[in-house]
Structures are given as C-alpha cells and as structure tokens.
C-alpha cells in the first residue's frame, strides 16, 4: 500500500523479500546496505536470534531522491524463512507493494522452496487485496553452486505469474542490485497502472 503524502510531497513504497530459511534474503539486504551510497539509505534494522537467523524482520529504507517534486522512498523488509514463523511473515507482508521471492537454486532445497512459495501466496490471498497490482520478482539465488536446478525448471515451479526472473549469488552481490532495480520498477509501474 503506497503511502502518498501530498503535503510533504513524499511517496513511500514497501517491498518484502520472501523465501525459505537460509535462501539469502538477509544477505541481499546486507549487500545493498554495504554497497549503496550511504546518503541514499537509512539504518539497517535486524531483529535476529542469537544465531543470526531472522526472528521477525530486517528493515532497510532507501531513498531515490526527489522525482517530479516527490521524494520517493522504498522500504525493504525481509521475513523470517523458518516455517514456524508464519505469524510473523503474515504481519510483515501487510501493506506491501512488491515481493521478491528469493529461491535457493540447490536441488536439495526444492521442497522448502515450493512450501515457501505456496505459503507466500496463501498469505497474500489472506490479505484480501488485488494481487495483480503487486510487483513481483523471482530471484534465483546461489547460482554459483554446483547442484542447482535449471532456470526453466525453477520457473515452472515457482513463477506461475510469469514475473521477471533474476539469477543471483547474493553472497558476492551478483544479481542483487539487478533484482532491486527490477522490483522497484515493477512496483512503480503497477502503482501507475490505470
């Protein structure tokens, strides 16, 4: 749900990184935080367990500056991937304008990816909003590992909306900004659709 403040000339959009445990959601956000111009970002907030697994969410606000007189911001969130944290995932998804589904490309993680993908759509549907107005990107992460699914096989399983796909290795940063650019543009395009 974009927040448009006409008096302050501000628009805020919310984007959520979703996916199974250890797929690389937090790694994406941490890489963006490290590499983006510090003037364009706020503080990275992480609510994690002592083992550095996400407990509630990570949060990173980004500003793209003033465009046509409107200060435009994207608020990036991650959800906890572990299956038993579904209540937290539902809360973080509230009011989102876009979703990056981060898939772990390894063959051994197939079941977790599919469960997380189905869980995403269950949770989005439960919010009762028009899902065709959401910006969605599928990031296929960990492409540098050896035993991974092909892009077409993973797309068949995890991309029923035919959304843009980005191959990535979040640890080294490959595809991280490409994913961010793609989802931001999707979100803006969807918000301006008639």
């Amino acid at each position, binding site marked *: 749900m974009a927040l*448009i403040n006409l*008096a302050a000339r501000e628009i805020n959009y919310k984007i959520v990184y979703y996916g199974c445990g250890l797929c690389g959601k937090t790694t994406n956000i941490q890489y963006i935080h490290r590499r983006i111009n510090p003037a364009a970002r706020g503080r990275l907030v992480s609510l994690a367990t002592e083992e550095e697994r996400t407990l509630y969410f990570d949060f990173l606000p980004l500003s793209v500056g003033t465009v046509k007189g409107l200060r435009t911001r994207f608020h990036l969130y991650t959800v906890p991937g572990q299956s038993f944290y579904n209540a937290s995932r539902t809360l973080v998804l509230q009011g989102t304008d876009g979703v990056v589904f981060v898939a772990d490309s390894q063959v051994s993680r197939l079941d977790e990816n599919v469960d997380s993908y189905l869980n995403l759509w269950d949770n989005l549907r439960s919010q009762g909003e028009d899902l065709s107005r959401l910006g969605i990107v599928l990031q296929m992460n960990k492409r540098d590992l050896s035993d991974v699914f092909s892009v077409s096989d993973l797309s068949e399983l995890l991309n029923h909306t035919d959304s843009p796909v980005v191959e990535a290795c979040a640890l080294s940063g490959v595809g991280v900004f490409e994913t961010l650019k793609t989802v931001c543009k999707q979100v803006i395009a969807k*918000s301006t659709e008639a």
Partner: protein
Amino acid sequence: MPSRRGLVISAEQMTLIEAVLERLRMVSGSQFAALVSTSGQPIAVSPQDGRTDTLSLAALAASSFAATRQLAQILSEREFTLLFHEGKEANLHVMQVTDQILLLITFGHETQVGRVRLYTSRALEVLKPALETAENTTGDDRVVNREYSREVGAAIDGLFSGQGDS
C-alpha cells in the same frame, strides 16, 4: 473483486495533523509525537528536528503493534488498541487511530502516563474522522502517473548503476 488500497494524505489533512501533533505534544508534556501507517511508514512527526530515527521507529512500532493485535486474537480478545512500553528514562505509547494509521508518543519523567492518555484520547477524536477519508483510495493520478513512473525508473537506474553487480 478486491482492490489494492492506498493511503493518500492531502495538504489539508496534513495541516490538521501537524497542528494536532504539536498541540498534543505541548499539552501532554511529551517529547515526541508521530503518525505512522500500519505498514510501517511515517506520515508526520513533531518536532521536525530530525533527531529521532523516524523511519526505524515507524517500522518497529508498526510491527510491534501488529504483533500485539495477533496476541489479542490468540487470547480471544477482540483487539488491543493500545501498546505501552515503560522504560527508565523514556516511555512509548502507541494507539490505533484508524485501520491503517497509528499514533506514537514518547515521554519521560516530566509528565504522567494518565495525562498522556487523556490528551491522546482527545487528539484521536479530532484525527480519526479527518483521516478516515485518506484510506481506501486507489492513488492520485495527478502526481503518480506514467511520466512520474518513467522518471523514477531513470532515477533508480542512476542510483543503482554505480553499485555494479560484482
């Protein structure tokens, strides 16, 4: 068919919000007051001195409030409409204004929680009817249009181009 909802705050609403927050802060003896959306985005703050990390505060308070609402459901309570964190030096008070808007107040020893609650309730009587019209809007074509979309796209390319996916 469900539709995507947006939250659009007009200039008139913002003038009212800023006046109410300023007045509330004065009469309640509070240090800081803010309106934030339930999805974690700040709408207005008082004072506007930039000393508080409003973006993080809004995200954390909204999430905390959302978790509190879920706790209410688990306890078969219709809803908890108030969240209060008590500290040694600072206290945080969060109340629901509308379905999509929360009011945050921080205060210290210079006032009392009863006084803050009293004046917050009075502020809600003014804010609630004024803000209900901001909800369930689908956007504002005057500012968010294709030209804006094109220019934001260029700004996104510019901002992220120097980062290069290594």
